[in-house]
């Protein structure tokens, strides 16, 4: 038996004690660390046992995936066959089938433009950003037609593409409008300030569906006699105005969090109001408000479902119509869960992106 000798400080680390590693230790530490903890764990496991197996059975194992009517479905399982049957309706609404390539192309370009804005390592970002600036017009042209393309009425818009249309338009226009409103509310020009306060508080005080009602039934009263206005356009304007009021409050929070010295320093350097805002105040304020801004985007995206109360058919509206369809009667749970999955993926994705952005921009403020 040789006894190894080590110079001070060169002994390799010993393995940790047996009772502080492994599954058992993890279980003991995280699930059974005390009597109450153990009871809570057991109760949770029991509740999961009650809920999960039957739900999984219903949703996956006993489910029917293929079929053309409700009668093809097993009575005890979920009837997922309608998804295949209705898939195009859920995605394109009533957009003419032979023109769907335009929707696909617009979505593809949206992904490219979105990548340019969201991902700063994209090659040739400068040019890509220019493309992103003009994308809204290209997208609108592709979807509605005109200028050489066959035009498609917006009443045919529906499903996922309608949600994307409303969501993207709202997001693109509500941010600049929200910034202007927030600056207006902070302004020391009383007329502008009180106009902004009045606008923001009014919009935030009423539910979106009353505004949508106004847009759908009453807006024609406020326009010069004889003017008509596309319904989708009116909805887009209302949704944008609605989101911009919330955006303004989020950005105001960011503006208020900045010390006054920032503006004073900028002014003492001789920057005028516009320059001070653009180079000093807004970059910092917007950075602080990123979580709130993304939350407003997510809210806007979810609120786009409210258009079903004025008769537009987004995925939820199509789902609701499918529930009433005599071929697929009594499928509400399956239909709505399917739509929920779609919304969950997009909103969860946005929330994750905001976390990533927060971490990336968190330069030196970490405690």
């Amino acid at each position: 038996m040789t006894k190894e000798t080590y110079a001070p400080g060169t002994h390799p680390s010993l393995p940790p004690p047996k009772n502080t590693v492994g599954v058992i230790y993890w279980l003991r530490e995280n699930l059974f660390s005390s009597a109450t903890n153990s009871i809570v764990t057991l109760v949770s496991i029991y509740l999961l046992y009650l809920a999960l197996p039957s739900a999984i059975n219903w949703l996956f194992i006993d489910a029917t995936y293929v079929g053309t009517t409700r009668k093809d479905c097993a009575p005890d399982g979920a009837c997922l066959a309608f998804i295949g049957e209705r898939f195009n309706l859920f995605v394109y609404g009533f957009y003419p089938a032979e023109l769907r390539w335009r929707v696909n192309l617009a979505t593809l370009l949206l992904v490219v433009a979105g990548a340019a804005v969201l991902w700063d390592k994209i090659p040739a970002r400068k040019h890509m950003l220019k493309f992103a600036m003009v994308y809204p017009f290209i997208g609108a042209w592709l979807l509605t037609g005109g200028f050489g393309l066959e035009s498609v009425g917006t009443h045919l818009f529906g499903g996922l593409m309608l949600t994307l249309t409303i969501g993207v338009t709202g997001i693109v226009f509500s941010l600049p409008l929200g910034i202007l409103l927030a600056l207006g509310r902070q302004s020391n020009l009383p007329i502008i300030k009180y106009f902004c306060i009045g606008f923001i508080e009014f919009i935030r005080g009423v539910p979106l569906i009353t505004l949508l009602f106004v847009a759908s039934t009453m807006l024609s009263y406020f326009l010069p006699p004889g003017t008509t206005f596309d319904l989708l356009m009116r909805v887009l304007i209302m949704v944008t105005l609605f989101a911009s009021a919330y955006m303004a409050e989020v950005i105001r929070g960011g503006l208020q969090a900045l010390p006054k010295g920032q503006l004073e320093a900028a002014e003492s350097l001789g920057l005028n109001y516009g320059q001070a805002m653009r180079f000093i105040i807004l970059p910092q304020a917007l950075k602080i408000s990123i979580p709130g801004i993304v939350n407003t985007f997510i809210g806007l995206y979810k609120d786009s479902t409210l258009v079903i109360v004025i008769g537009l058919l987004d995925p939820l509206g199509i789902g609701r119509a499918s529930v009433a369809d005599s071929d697929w009667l009594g499928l509400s749970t399956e239909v709505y869960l399917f739509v929920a999955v779609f919304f969950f993926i997009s909103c969860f994705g946005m929330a994750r992106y905001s976390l990533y952005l927060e971490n990336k921009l968190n330069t030196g403020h970490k405690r």
Partner: protein
Amino acid sequence: MSTPTSNTNPLLRAWYDKETRSVIVQIIAAALILAFFSFIINNAVVNLSNIGKDINFSFLWDNASYDINQHLIEYSSTSSHFRAMIVGLINTLLVAVAGIVLATILGFLLGVMRLSSNWLTQKIAYVYIEYMRNVPVLLHILLLHGLIVSSLPRPKGSYNFGDTFFLNNRGFQMPSPEFQSLFWIVSGFVVGGLAFAWWFSRHAQKVQDTTGKAYPVALINIAAIVLLPLAVYFILGSPIEWDVPALKGFNFKGGMVIRPEFIALWLALSLYTAAFIGEIVRAGIVAIDHGQTEAAQALGISNSRVLKLVVIPQALRVIIPPLTSQYLNLAKNSSLALAIGYMDIVATIGGISLNQTGREMECMLIVMGIYLAISLIISSGMNWYNNRMQLVER
């Protein structure tokens, strides 16, 4: 010595002067705003007169001639539109208040679960919150309504709880109280108990502040508010008669019913808002410096009192402002009742009355005005509470 004389143009000079410029900008803004409003008001007047309409609220006293299936005050199809509006308003307030209560309870529970040292509860709360937050509330409402209507049995096969409560796809049937003449004595005791509890809490606080002696305040108050009136109730020989629902033919007669629309809306709004409140509560508790807890523990205060006396009072200051906006959201989201046919303010005066009378302008003004008032009341109430909880600084 010469000063730079590049701006000889007086207009340009005025523009570079901050004071003058702000006046100019404001005059332009005011002119634009006025022009805009006079433009749309003028359009509205012209358009309305073209189709022979005016703005007139007297239709509110005409017969509404439609039924509302849930009314807490007397209402029939011969009542006026005004009364229909009040019924709708009460229904809105009912679901908003019930939703706020349930959402707050669930939200605090979720917030605590998210911070639990138990891995499993923490993950359950996380999954729940993420699912709820990332799916539109309208979808939750429709899903729950669909679930209730399609999965609960018909009245014939109701879930029966001791022959007094019944659950079926027409709602939750339960006995309704009929108050006898002696009941006012019991209510008198309840009011007296509340007054006593209010006085006693303040008194006990004062005693504790001066002498350090602590009374079992909660126990005594519960006895005063609940136990004593209950004892009086039984001594007087139970002066409430219960009208128990019973199955007659295809439906239940007697008792009262909580309708499926209400249950779906209430649960969906509460479950949805609770997820947001859970995150707010978690953020509020995390925001409290750990040193506070450690200092309290070092003083030998027990864990539950640390939570009650040190952590929660400080966390509430962080929690209340965002909590207020969640309450406001819940109240406004209750307008989605329309989608499942719950007769709230939007569905009554802003829906059926509007369609019957064709008075869009007046009805929408009323609906928006009411929501603005509700928002104002909630936010001023929460501001008052917030000011009371605020740290008193010198």
